[in-house]
């Protein structure tokens, strides 16, 4: 750190003087049944050290064997990103010591990745409306393995600093990862944060469509690193870059880019220099803090992994896998927009919110596109924003959203009650049906009870009743309102209206 009190230049100001040079690295944890190099299960959340074996514990004498399904997934991701697939490639050892890495080398790929030279066209929502398509070039996608997890005990709980000791669980060690690395992304400075977010969002959509990963940022099965440096405008001078890690939502990707641009600008304005270091992102306030400084200690001493044979995917296999790819994202977006009869603006909002797959799945579960969009971009987007999480990570499924809309369509709840059902489902109270019954949210559709309430309303409001009898149907609203108030909202307003009109006709 150059100074203790770091000046953060406001983003809009920073980009008048500097151009951001940005690259992204995304780690995708595959959803294979077993680990990259051993037959251990990969289930999330298992008891500590119950999914381990000599191989993923790095016991003396243990040897790795490649998971064919992981290679298949890697090739499919590569193809979906329009990459070339290597005809022959190898694994390499990346040597460095860290207690959560059992062998003290990571089996990864170095100069021979399985996939390289691709791109992803992403739709970036523009501030002024509309979208712009940006081609993000993919340098490479390679296979590697995850590390174990450490729990830091003592000191500030869970924090590495001040801990007395750490406890290691190797269940995650050896889970297959695909690391996707972009080339430098060239976009106008003001777009950089949105491009970063759009890339990660749409890459996730693609990964989900390929069904190769759960791709949950909140659970760490999709992790993004932001590499960023600033170049003084039109100088052609390249700055020193920082690598921001631990970014665990789409929104945070955008915030991290914004923050780092402001931070770098602050340091450079003050005549300081940026350290080449990793940075940690903090959800709470959207800031980053210094991690480990890069030094020549980062000499990873890569060499070809002697315990593994090279991978040489046959062209037949590659073509066969190409045949299994889902529709390309841009085509799919065009098709869905037409099917759903969404305006460009509707579509932009949906894509921008990371809701495309969620809306599609909700529609697939029987809801109209308009209703699906209404919930995901309304009630649920508000909730995600409050929680600082991504839509996809909310504890509600598209099927549940469809079920709630189904309750409305069936007249069992009205819109207002539906919001309470959403609340209940999000709070983990169970399925929509369960929430309706435990919270007693069902509208009163018993005509007897409703009829009595309508009678009471007519009695209490003789003037209004007379107006309706005289044909001023629009006056019915006041009576309906009175009935709804008496029923505490738990009535089908449409049915109330019918009853009012029947009785006064």
């Amino acid at each position: 750190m150059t100074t203790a009190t770091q000046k953060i230049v406001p983003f809009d100001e920073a980009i008048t003087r500097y151009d951001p040079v940005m690259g992204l690295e995304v780690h995708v944890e595959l959803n294979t049944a077993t680990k990259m190099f051993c037959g251990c299960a990969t289930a999330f959340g298992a008891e500590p050290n119950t999914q381990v074996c000599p191989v993923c514990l790095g016991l003396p004498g243990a040897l790795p064997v490649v998971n064919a399904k992981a290679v298949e997934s890697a090739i499919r991701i590569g193809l979906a990103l329009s990459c070339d697939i290597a005809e022959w490639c190898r694994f390499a050892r990346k040597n460095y010591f860290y207690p959560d890495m059992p062998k003290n080398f990571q089996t990864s790929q170095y100069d021979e990745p399985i996939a390289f030279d691709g791109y992803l066209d992403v739709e970036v929502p523009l501030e002024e409306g509309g979208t712009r398509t940006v081609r993000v070039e993919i340098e490479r996608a390679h296979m590697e393995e995850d590390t174990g997890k450490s729990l830091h005990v003592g000191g500030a709980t869970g924090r590495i600093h001040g801990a007395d000791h750490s406890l290691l669980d190797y269940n995650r060690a050896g889970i297959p990862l695909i690391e996707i690395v972009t080339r430098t992304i060239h976009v106008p400075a003001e777009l950089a944060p949105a491009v970063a977010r759009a890339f990660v969002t749409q890459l996730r959509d693609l990964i989900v469509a390929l069904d190769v990963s759960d791709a949950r940022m909140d659970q760490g099965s999709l992790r993004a690193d932001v590499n960023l440096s600033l170049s003084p405008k039109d100088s052609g001078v390249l700055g020193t870059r920082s690598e921001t890690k631990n970014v665990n939502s789409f929104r945070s990707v955008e915030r991290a880019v914004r923050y780092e641009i402001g931070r770098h600008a602050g340091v450079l304005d003050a005549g300081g220099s940026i350290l080449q270091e990793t940075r940690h992102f903090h959800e709470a306030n959207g800031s980053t803090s210094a991690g480990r400084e890069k030094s020549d200690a980062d000499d990873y001493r890569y060499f070809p992994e002697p315990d593994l044979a090279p991978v040489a995917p046959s062209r037949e296999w590659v073509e066969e896998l190409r045949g299994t790819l889902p529709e390309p994202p841009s085509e799919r977006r065009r098709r869905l927009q037409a099917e759903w009869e969404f305006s460009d603006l509707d579509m932009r909002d949906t894509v921008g919110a990371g809701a495309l797959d969620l809306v599609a799945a909700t529609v697939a579960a029987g809801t109209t596109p308009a209703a699906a969009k209404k919930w995901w971009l309304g009630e649920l987007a508000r909730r995600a924003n409050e929680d600082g999480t991504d839509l996809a990570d909310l504890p509600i499924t598209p099927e549940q959203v469809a079920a709630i809309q189904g309750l409305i369509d069936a007249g069992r709840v009205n819109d207002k009650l539906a919001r309470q059902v959403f609340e209940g489902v999000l709070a983990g109270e169970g399925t929509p049906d369960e929430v309706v019954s435990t919270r007693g949210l069902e509208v009163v559709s018993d005509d007897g009870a409703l009829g009595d309430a309508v009678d009471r309303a007519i009695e209490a409001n003789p003037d209004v009743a007379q107006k309706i009898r005289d044909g001023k149907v629009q006056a019915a609203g006041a009576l309906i309102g009175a009935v709804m108030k008496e029923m505490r909202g738990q009535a089908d307003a449409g049915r109330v209206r019918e009853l009012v009109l029947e009785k006064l006709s």
Partner: protein
Amino acid sequence: MSDLTRLGAAELAEKLAGGEVTSVDVTRAHLERIGEVDSRLHAFLHVGEESAMATAADVDARRAAGEDVPTLAGVPVAVKDLINTTDQPTTAGSRMLEGWVPPYDATVVARLRAAGLPILGKTNLDEFAMGSSNEHSAYGPTRNPWDTDRIPGGSSGGSAAAVASHEAPLALGTDTGGSIRQPGAMTGVVGMKPTYGGVSRYGVVAMASSLDQVGPMARSVLDAALLHEVVAGHDPLDSTSIDAPVPDVVAAARRGDVSGLKIGIVRELGGEGFQPGVQAAFDGAVEQLAQAGAEVVEVACPSFRHGIAAYYLVMPSEVSSNLARFDAMRYGLRVSPEGVPDPSAEQVMSASRDAGFGDEVKRRIVLGTYALSSGYYDAYYGSAQKVRTLIARDFAAAFEQVDVLVSPTAPTTAWRLGEKSDDPLAMYLEDVCTIPANLAGVPGLSLPVGLADDTGLPVGVQFLAPALADDRVYNVAAALERLVAAPVLEEVR
């Protein structure tokens, strides 16, 4: 010495099958022999009396019940302490793994168990198999039964001494740069390094992954072949294991016929720098082969002279990475640095690795770290890998001309303990004959051919064949074995 310990594995197998002896008797006889002589040899780091006797009793019971058991069932075996066993500690000859009992068996051990061989114990070795003399064992050196002031060779020196001294009829060793063949030559026993990938490495503590192979040691070519057959063959847990049938090494060892075969003397592996007694024994052996009907020619393998340089880059590089896992976090020795209150994991790692590893291991780790570091990789590791290609080409060209290559196994007979301890490079040069086979992955067998007339110590001759042609070296060795007076050790001296 009991008569039972004088017998070889094939003879014991025959007597066991014929009901003349029981495995309990045979196993006990060998355990007794270990009790008699091992305090002078230190061939064993651990004797697994209980589990060996249990296996023996089980095999006897199965035989008595008329069950059809494998050929070597009941014949005891010693296992190099680099190979994981769940019922006996595996230390790799290092303080780092003192007392460590692996939670899994090596594939070769699983195969020994399936074939009913009682495991007598775990044999001494240079720490993590790094050495040519067994002086680098953290638990003290093994001594050569032919002269206990001398080294038995290494790193499988414990296995070699155990077989030579009749403590065991059979043993498993590992060979990364000659570690089966050289101690075989130094102690007068047969030692075979199979084709790379011929025997599973799963569960064998790795030294240099692209060079390591497990192989048999025995007092006869046939015995070695019988053990080879038990442990060899494809293992899906080892990605470098060859998925092809094992050549019929037992048939080859029984055949022993060189008439019409073409045998090539490697010009670069002999002459200057070779002990006269070794050279004379070698020349005599070759003469015998010619008389038996083989056509003997001289073959040039010019790149072999660079084998040691390439080996001492490839091997330490892989060592530096393979031994990184010994970090005091999950298993093995953990020591805290002195005078550091509340040390960090990093400090404990560094202190444990300093305390747990011996000098030779540290030397190789540092050398390998250097050879792989950025800026040096191409010049060192990269070039060494290219030299491997050149050596493989020399082999390929040679095998165009001849069926089998032959050389002395080592330039000298066994030296005195401590004689080369101060000069690591001098020790490295001892591996000149054996290293090319590891670099190229081809099989090599060392056969004892008598005693050197200058030192009176055993001399070995090495046969080399193309990859996958392990049977060829057994055939030629079996032929020569009949023609030379194999040195028989009467008593530990």
